[in-house]
């Protein structure tokens, strides 16, 4: 089987400007929604109490909401979770009332209305823990960004590092934009997914950059645009197949992983979809706008080339 029968290099870079404009628009839209709607942060970040309650028959969310509201908790959220029989209740942290009391109170009230209510999970997080988690999350993000940039700058060149990181932050912002727009719950596992996407998406860019570097050495008559086009074209089948198989795994998580893994898998799905796009149209084109040249990569690799016996152009200079 062969999916890709590409006769000539596809002129990806001819449309770079258009695609960059499109990604700029999506990026700005994501930023806009992040600011206007904000992330629906999970209880891990905000602090508070979370109860997962299951019923013998489909639960009436309105009744549950009513029952909990009658207890005098302000700002209670009740929603279905996973199946129709499971309900998720979020209570904000209250001063002076322990979570034990909160959850016990709520459970007694719910059981009084419907005896089949049973507790599956409760979670309580103090506000100081939430702040720390948010801080740690940002630190992790910064660490990843700086770490990857340093690595790429050493292995390739700073222009590639900048291009890759912009492309991948673009992915991250877009995932968060989705979470803000749909008000999906942004929890710790979602944060893990976002960071995993960052690593994964850089992976993509690296494969293309790697090919660009190789092409610079191999095809000495091509100009930068042709080299980039050739690199993307010759790796496109790999890009799509790899993404496809990762996507299969993630889809399997989305389908079989249940409610707990739902948003985690969703974040990965979006990340993978945008990951292909961003490494092709964002990373490569930014590298192009930054003006990568043969000299950028070749000067660092002269020594290496001499030691490569398979390279027919060893020692040649242009």
């Amino acid at each position, binding site marked *: 089987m062969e999916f890709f029968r590409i006769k000539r290099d596809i002129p990806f870079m001819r449309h770079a400007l258009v695609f960059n404009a499109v990604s700029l628009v999506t990026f700005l839209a994501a930023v806009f929604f992040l600011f206007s709607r904000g992330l629906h942060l999970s209880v891990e970040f905000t602090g508070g109490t979370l109860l997962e309650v299951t019923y013998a028959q489909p639960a009436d969310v309105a009744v549950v909401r009513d029952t909990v509201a009658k207890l005098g908790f302000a700002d209670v959220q009740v929603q279905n979770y996973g199946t129709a029989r499971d309900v998720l209740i979020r209570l904000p942290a209250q001063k002076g009332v322990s979570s034990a009391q909160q959850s016990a109170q709520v459970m007694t009230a719910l059981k009084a209305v419907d005896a089949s209510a049973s507790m599956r999970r409760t979670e309580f997080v103090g506000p100081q823990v939430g702040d720390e988690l948010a801080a740690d999350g940002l630190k992790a993000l910064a660490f990843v960004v700086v770490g990857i940039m340093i690595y790429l700058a050493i292995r390739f060149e700073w222009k590639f590092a900048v291009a890759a990181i912009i492309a991948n932050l673009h992915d991250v912002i877009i995932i968060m934009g989705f979470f803000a727009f749909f008000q999906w719950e942004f929890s710790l596992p979602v944060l893990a997914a976002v960071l995993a996407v960052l690593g994964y998406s850089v992976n993509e860019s690296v*494969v293309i950059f790697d090919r660009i570097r190789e092409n610079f050495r191999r095809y000495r008559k091509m100009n930068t645009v042709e080299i980039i086009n050739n690199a993307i074209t010759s790796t496109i089948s790999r890009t799509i197949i790899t993404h496809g198989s990762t996507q299969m795994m993630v889809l399997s998580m989305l389908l079989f992983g249940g409610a707990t893994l739902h948003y985690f898998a969703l974040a990965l799905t979006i990340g993978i979809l945008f990951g292909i796009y961003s490494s092709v149209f964002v990373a490569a084109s930014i590298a192009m706008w930054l003006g990568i040249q043969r000299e950028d990569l070749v000067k660092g690799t002269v020594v290496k080339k001499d030691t490569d016996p398979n390279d027919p152009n060893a020692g040649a200079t242009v």
Partner: protein
Amino acid sequence: MNRYPVWKYVIIVIALVVGGLYALPNFFGESPAVQVSAAKTLVKVDTNTLAQVEAALKAAGITVDQVVLDGTSIKVRLNDTDAQLKAKDAIQKALLPDPSNPAYVVALNLVSRSPAWLTGLHAAPMYLGLDLRGGVHFMLQVDMQAALSKRAESLSGDLRTSLREKNIRHSGINREGQTIEVKFRDAATRTQAQAVFQDQFTDLQTAESADGVDFKLTASIKPDAARRIQDQALKQNITTLHNRINELGVAEPVIQQQGLDRIVVQLPGVQDTAKAKDILGRTATLEVRMVDESAEARGAEAGTGMVPFGSERYLERSGQPVIVKKQVILTGENLTDAQPGFDGQTQEPTVNLNLDAKGTRIFRDVTRENVGKRMAILLFEKGKGEVVTAPVIRTEIGGGRVQISGRMTTMEANDTALLLRAGSLAAPMEIIEETTIGPSLGAENIAKGFHSVAWGFLAVAVFMCIYYMLFGVFSSIALAFNLLLLVALLSMLQATLTLPGMAAMALVLGMAIDSNVLINERIREELRNGASPQAAIHTGYDRAWATIFDSNITTLIAGLALLAFGSGPVRGFAVVHCLGIMTSMFSGVFFSRGLVNLWYGRKNRLKSVSIGTIWRPESGATIKAE
């Protein structure tokens, strides 16, 4: 060209065997068990106990799968949960003749069903996180400021005694937060006092100041001493928690320090969360102080006067105010045991205490000097104190055995004894994070995690085999090998597997196939460009390696960041993610090449390789492989 030296195959075989062995225990599942461990430090679980347990089980006629002495506990493996409950009752009856004074903890547990020879190799299954087995997770924050204030208070008490012994006259010792102020009438006595400080109170640093006519000496705890005090406080709290949790009879609880001032407690399988929280959450500290019996204090007790200087007002359980001195005589640290009981003469419920050597000495001195006076036992919960009881000292009490009686119900006596026995906390604690996961949810999570990995794996493997033919089969085998290595590695490290960990496993498998796709695509490309099959395989693997290395390192950077800054579920994800990247580099490149070399390497005149269709743009025709 495509041959591996023998040693490379030896490495592969070793990895396969070791991986297989250590991954194996995970497939045996768990059987219900009863775990017997010591409830007191003096009690040892040894072969005698083992014999006792065996005899008890035989007497009850319960068929047992296996009884082993495992370090400091005995594990009895049973066939079903029914036998488990019966066995627990039988063992409890035999080992614990007096339930109010348990020497052992008998708890229900789950034990791996893997055979003894595997356990002998230290091959144990992965430890399942709470989200997969159900249970309670708490994070407790220790109030370090309170620990320091308390230390300052006891130091100021010692200071008073020392100054009296040395005959140095001061005009008042006062504690304000964590600083102690001592006032003197002249500079000479202050200098004398300062010598005492330097000699006996090395934990304190002093500063001189003048306040009107007074000469003042301000002492505060040195930073390194403060650090030590905090460290000790945390350690003591952990010990106390161990004791308290033992009372619950939980098998395999996790009690760990986290950071400088936090303690994580995980109780797998605990369903009665209210009780767990109640026992853990009793952040009580115990203090014994003298009741202030001066006339002013009496007045204050009656509500007509001010509380005298150096005393504080607390309420008794009945609501009656009691004025007690600030100076602490004893704390819970000096207590070795506490039991509820009955007074032989009056038949009143009592609490019987045993004190350690230091406590005994102090208690004897204090009771001798204060016969006929009242002594208060105070319990501090969340910074608020309450007088548990304030009995009158009838005689000098030596020997360290103390009986407290008066106005207590049997229930109260039991509760007080439990609290005292469990030891007091060096500093109050507060639950700042709590998660409870029901057992059914845990089982569901395992099934869901397992299904996502299994279906995802199957989909990828089927696709690879169709698209890349024989090379796809090699890739799929390499992928399976990767999964095996990952499971083996996690079992070896005894890492805790959580649901996010299982998600990471699925993700890693999806990403691991990337190496093989890169390689296979590269080989096809070489073939398309007219390379000979052997050369194509060789170049394909070689050229792809640089790319695989670069892309995996960048992914690893992200994984390490998660590991460094994550906590809880993120950490569980990161551990599997990082390990998975490393195993996938090994299996995707080294192992899969081993397979390819084994299959194709020996064929000198290889015409074609089975890697699916190679399409050539120039001719527009396709070469069908094989």
